[in-house]
C-alpha cells in the first residue's frame, strides 16, 4: 500500500496506488436546500446514457429521499455498518474544523475503506465493501416523499385512499459518481480497467478491459458502478465527457456542464473544474466558484468523507435536519457551513446566483459591488442586501453571463399605461 494525502481527512492514508493527480479535477456543488426531487436530472441522464436493454436498473444520476431512501437500498447504512464493525467506536474526528486548507474539517482518527485490513473478506481484497443484492438495485425511488409504510410491507398502506402524513424531517439527496481523487472502484479492479483521465480527473471504465468481476461494484462505497448482465461488463457515470471537452456542437468548443447539471430546474447545481497541487490538495484559485464554496465560504462539504475516497462532489447541507445525522453524512464542518449559509455575506449571495444560469462551465467569477438595497434582520442577525452584479467567465476568459440583484421594478404593461 502506498501512502497518499487526503485533505478531507486531514491526514495521510493507505491507498493501493501512488497518488497521481490530473491537471484539472471535475467537481461539483449541490445545494440540498434547493432540491425538489423533481428527478429531471435523473431522467436527463437516463435518456442520454442508460436507456438500452440491460440497463434498466441503472441510474447513474439519482435523487433519493433521506433518511429512508437509497439507491441501491441502504447503501450508506451498510458501508457505515461495515466500517463500524471493523473499528467499533473508533470512527471519530479528532480535532475541530480549522482554517488549514490541508485539513479544513480537522483530522479523522478512524479507518477508511482502504485501511480496514482486518475486516476484508477475502483477506486478499483491497477495499472494504459489499455487493448489493439484485433486489436492492430494483427500487431507485422507494419512499420518495413517503417514508411511512407498514413494517415488513414496504409501500403497502392500510389506507388505500390517502397517503399518511409523515411527521418527520427528510431531504432529497441528489447523487452521481463523485469522480473521487482516490477511487475505490479503480483501486479494486484486478484488470486495471478503471482509470482517471489526466486532463479532467473523470473516472472511466474501459469496457474492452473489463471482465465483469464486479470488484468495482463491491468496492465503490457510493455504489455508483453498476453491472450490466447482458454485456457482462460494468458501467458507470462518464461525467458526460464529450460535453466537458466542448465537443457538443452547441458549445462552440467551450466546456459544457453535464446533462444532469444543465437539466436542473431547481437551480441547485454548479459544476466546474479545480486545479490540484502535487499532493492532491486544491490549488488556491480564489475566484473559482467551487474553490470559493468549498475552501473560502466552506458551505459545501464532501459526502461521507470518512470513506476515504476524497469525493469531488460537495453538498450544501440541509439546514433543518438534525445535526447528528448531518455530521455523520458530511463530517464536522456541518455546523459552520449551515451557520454561514443562513447568514450569507454579499460574496456568498453573489456566488449562489451563479447556480444554473448557464450550461457553460464557469472558471472564474467577478463581483461588482452595487448600492445597498435592504437593511434589516435575518435569523436574528443584522443583514444587508446589496445591488451587486456577479459576472461569470468561461475557460477562454470570455464573459458567459452576468447576474444582478436589484431593487424590484414594476413595469406597467402598455395596455394599462394610463389606467390610474
Amino acid at each position, binding site marked *: 500500500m502506498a501512502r497518499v494525502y487526503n485533505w478531507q481527512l486531514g491526514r495521510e492514508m493507505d491507498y493501493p496506488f501512488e497518488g497521481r493527480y490530473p491537471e484539472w479535477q471535475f467537481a461539483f456543488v449541490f445545494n440540498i*436546500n*434547493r432540491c*425538489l*426531487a423533481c428527478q429531471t436530472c435523473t431522467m436527463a441522464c437516463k435518456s442520454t446514457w442508460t436507456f438500452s436493454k440491460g440497463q434498466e436498473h441503472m441510474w447513474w444520476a439519482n435523487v433519493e429521499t433521506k*433518511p*429512508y431512501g437509497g439507491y441501491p437500498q*441502504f447503501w450508506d*447504512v*451498510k458501508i457505515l*455498518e461495515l466500517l463500524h464493525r471493523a473499528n467499533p467506536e473508533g470512527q471519530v474526528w479528532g480535532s475541530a474544523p480549522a482554517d488549514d486548507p490541508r485539513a479544513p474539517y480537522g483530522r479523522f482518527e478512524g479507518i477508511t475503506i482502504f485501511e480496514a485490513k482486518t475486516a476484508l473478506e477475502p483477506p486478499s481484497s483491497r477495499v472494504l465493501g459489499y455487493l448489493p443484492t439484485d*433486489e436492492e438495485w430494483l427500487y431507485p425511488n422507494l*419512499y*420518495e*416523499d*413517503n*417514508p*411511512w*409504510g*407498514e*413494517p*415488513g*410491507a414496504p409501500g403497502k398502506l392500510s389506507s388505500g385512499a390517502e397517503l399518511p*402524513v*409523515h*411527521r*418527520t*424531517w*427528510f*431531504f*432529497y439527496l441528489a447523487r452521481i459518481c463523485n469522480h473521487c481523487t482516490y477511487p475505490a472502484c479503480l483501486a479494486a479492479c484486478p484488470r486495471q480497467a478503471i482509470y482517471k483521465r489526466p486532463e479532467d480527473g473523470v473516472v472511466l471504465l474501459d469496457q474492452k478491459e473489463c471482465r465483469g468481476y464486479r470488484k468495482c461494484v463491491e468496492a465503490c462505497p457510493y455504489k455508483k458502478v453498476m453491472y450490466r448482465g447482458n454485456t457482462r461488463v460494468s458501467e458507470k457515470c462518464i461525467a458526460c465527457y464529450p460535453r466537458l471537452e466542448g465537443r457538443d*456542437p*452547441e458549445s*462552440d468548443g467551450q466546456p459544457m456542464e453535464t446533462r444532469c447539471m444543465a437539466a436542473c430546474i431547481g*437551480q441547485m447545481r454548479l459544476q466546474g473544474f479545480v486545479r490540484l497541487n502535487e499532493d492532491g490538495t486544491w490549488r488556491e484559485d480564489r475566484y473559482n466558484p467551487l474553490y470559493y464554496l468549498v475552501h473560502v465560504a466552506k458551505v459545501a462539504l464532501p459526502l461521507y468523507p470518512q470513506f476515504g475516497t476524497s469525493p469531488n462532489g460537495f453538498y450544501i447541507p*440541509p*439546514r*433543518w*435536519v*438534525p445535526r447528528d445525522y448531518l455530521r455523520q453524512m458530511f463530517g464536522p464542518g456541518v455546523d459552520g457551513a449551515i451557520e454561514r449559509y443562513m447568514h450569507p455575506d454579499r460574496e456568498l449571495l453573489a456566488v*449562489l*446566483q451563479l447556480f444554473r*444560469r*448557464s450550461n457553460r462551465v464557469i472558471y472564474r467569477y467577478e463581483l461588482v459591488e452595487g448600492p445597498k*438595497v*435592504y437593511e*434589516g*434582520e*435575518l435569523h436574528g442577525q443584522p443583514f444587508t*442586501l446589496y445591488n451587486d452584479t456577479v459576472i461569470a467567465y468561461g475557460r477562454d476568459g*470570455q*464573459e*458567459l*453571463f*452576468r*447576474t*444582478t*440583484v*436589484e*431593487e*424590484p421594478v414594476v413595469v406597467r404593461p402598455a395596455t394599462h399605461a394610463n389606467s390610474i
Partner: protein
Amino acid sequence: MRRRTAGPADPMMRVGHAVPCEARDVEAMAEAFAEELAQIGFDEARVLRIFRHPFYGGPHLAWRVLGEERLREIVARAVGPWRAMRVRVEDQAVPPESPRLWPRRE
C-alpha cells in the same frame, strides 16, 4: 424472485421506524423552503401556493402539519428580507459570425 420478508427488528429495514423529530424540525424545514423560494424571486402568495399544492411533497407536508395560519407567519418571516431582491440575468450575446452546427438554420 423470492421477496425478502422483514420485521421491525431487522436493522436494515427501516420502514416505519421512528427517527428523532421535534415540531421545530418541520418548522425549520418550512422556513428553509420558503426562504429558498424567496431567493429565486417568489413572493409570499406564490410561496404559499407551493405549500398548498400536494404535488410538492415536502412543503405540503409542512402545510398539513403546521396549518395554514402558522405557515403564513413562517412564510411572511422568511420572505421578508428577500422582498427587496430581484434578479436580472444577462447572457453574453452570441457573435453573429459564431459557427452554428445545430440546430441548423435553413
